[in-house]
């Protein structure tokens, strides 16, 4: 049994850069590459694409990423684990098969399914309670439902020697924990907790190597244009060293690791995954220098008896419009424009928000009595029941050209259908991962 494996993370969201993963595969000496490309809403959007075309519903960048990575993965004998299967792992795996045949590469591909509970929940008589509010699932027009499954399906695929593993909705840290369990035969919750900490640190890729961290005054980071993505040397005792490929941009130090350790954590004593409940309050870090941080500690207790299921539902149509004002009295002119729009739309839309970009739009408030901005952008956003009504929002903003205050310019307007996400809990026995193999 190995004492150490190296896992790289080459993508932290669906739209992430492609070349950091290529650098990891080419120069990182990694055993495993993980690409984490699936957010809550991403999978609901993927479900919509699958409804329109049963051969789609996998990640839109899968073809591009895999065409570039596959030759490197085969050459350096690296195993890939990715949730780019999104709403349709089978179709995603078939696409990878097609790419491998085109490139003349021999690979075994595994598609993990079983997370998709859309049909079950859409037609269920059970009154599932929504976690985020006091409502029930029956109050929603359900588009999709995907359970956050754990390591089980991936483990089976790893035992089968598949080189490329394509999943749908899997809890992000589980994508990393699976190869650790596979290589080190971990059983105890304590080790699963440690592995989950490491997975959580890696899952956002560049967010631990200096991405989404830099502040030129207080926290400068070198060469973000060529940010390296992280890898971890994971040891069989559950400790790890996080680092990045020499020569890439970014940095790994205590500050970058701490920011990522606490990212999106709602209770550091109990970090829930389908595999374990991890404790982050016992994690310790040591800066080894040269972009290396050692992780030790972390514990875990028995996994929950339920799976969390992300439910996508039809929420509303969003109409938006924007217009800019600059120079003398820009703020007053923008505010006059805002008043006009509010008057025109108050009986047309369900809910409206008017922002003054440059004054208070991003924080929804303003902590400073700052000087008057030179320019300001009015932004109007409203919830409506139809695309037609949503379009009126932008049309009203555009009409300010000839009907509103002086000197407005740069109108943009948008209409989008919004898919909302809520969560429910489903008993573990109702979910079973399945695996389908493809070989070129």
């Amino acid at each position, binding site marked *: 049994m190995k004492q150490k494996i190296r896992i790289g993370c080459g993508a932290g969201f669906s739209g992430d850069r492609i070349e950091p993963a290529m650098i990891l595969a080419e120069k990182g000496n990694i055993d495993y590459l993980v690409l984490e490309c699936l957010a*809550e*809403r991403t999978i609901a959007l993927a479900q919509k694409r699958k409804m329109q075309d049963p051969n789609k519903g996998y990640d839109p960048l899968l073809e591009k990423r895999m065409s570039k990575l596959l030759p490197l993965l085969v050459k350096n004998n690296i195993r890939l684990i990715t949730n780019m299967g999104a709403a349709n792992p089978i179709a995603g795996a078939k696409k990878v098969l097609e790419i491998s045949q085109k490139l003349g590469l021999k690979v075994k591909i595994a598609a993990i399914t079983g997370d998709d509970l859309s049909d079950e929940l859409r037609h269920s008589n059970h009154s599932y309670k929504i*976690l*985020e509010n006091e409502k029930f699932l029956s109050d929603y027009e359900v588009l999709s439902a995907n359970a956050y499954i754990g390591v089980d399906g991936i483990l089976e695929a790893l035992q089968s020697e598949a080189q490329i593993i394509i999943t749908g909705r899997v809890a992000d840290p589980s994508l990393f924990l699976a190869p650790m369990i596979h290589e080190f035969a971990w059983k105890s919750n304590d080790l699963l907790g440690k592995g989950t900490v490491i997975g959580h640190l890696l899952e956002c890729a560049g967010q631990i190597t200096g991405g*989404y*961290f830099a*502040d030129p005054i*207080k*926290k400068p980071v070198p060469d973000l244009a060529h940010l390296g993505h992280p890898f971890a040397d994971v040891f069989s005792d559950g400790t790890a060293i996080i680092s990045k490929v020499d020569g890439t941009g970014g940095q790994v130090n205590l*500050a970058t690791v*701490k*920011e*990522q*350790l*606490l*990212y*999106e*954590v*709602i*209770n*550091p*004593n109990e970090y829930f995954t389908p595999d374990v409940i991890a404790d*982050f*309050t*016992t*994690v*310790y*870090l040591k800066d080894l220098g040269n972009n290396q941080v050692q992780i030790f*500690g972390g514990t875990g207790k028995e996994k929950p008896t339920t799976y969390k299921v992300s439910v996508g539902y039809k*929420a*509303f149509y*969003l109409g938006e419009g924007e217009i800019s004002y600059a120079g003398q009295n820009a703020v007053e002119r923008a505010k006059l424009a805002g008043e006009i729009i509010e008057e025109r739309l108050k009986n047309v839309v369900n*809910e*409206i*928000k008017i*922002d003054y*970009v440059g004054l208070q*739009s*991003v*924080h*929804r*408030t303003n*902590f*400073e009595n700052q000087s008057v901005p030179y320019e300001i952008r009015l*932004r109007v*956003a*409203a*919830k409506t029941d139809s695309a037609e009504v949503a379009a009126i929002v932008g049309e009203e903003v555009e009409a300010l050209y000839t009907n509103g205050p002086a000197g407005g310019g740069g109108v943009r307007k948008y209409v989008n259908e*919004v*898919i*909302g*996400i*809520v*969560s429910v809990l489903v008993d573990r026995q109702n979910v079973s991962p399945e695996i389908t193999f493809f070989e070129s």
Partner: protein
Amino acid sequence: MKLYDLAHSRAGDKGNISTLSLIPYDENDYEKLCLEVTVDKVKTHLKDIVSGEIVRYEMPNIASLLFVCQNALMSGVTTSLAVDTHGKALSYALLEMEL
């Protein structure tokens, strides 16, 4: 002095919850932050943003604090009308706090 001078932060989102870490540049300032950046002070500071409860987790193991803020994202990332639906920029709202 602002929190910005002593510490850094990253915001995360889960539904309508915003998580805000608070990490001193110098670990020796951790005790000072524990004493001065209380839940009540953060509630007052973020009164226009967070309408729900705020829980503060102390993490001496990494000399950091974590604020978990309920009802902070105008219904949450998928259905909010805000410019910044994730509340990603709220880390810098916390750091605006005067010490």
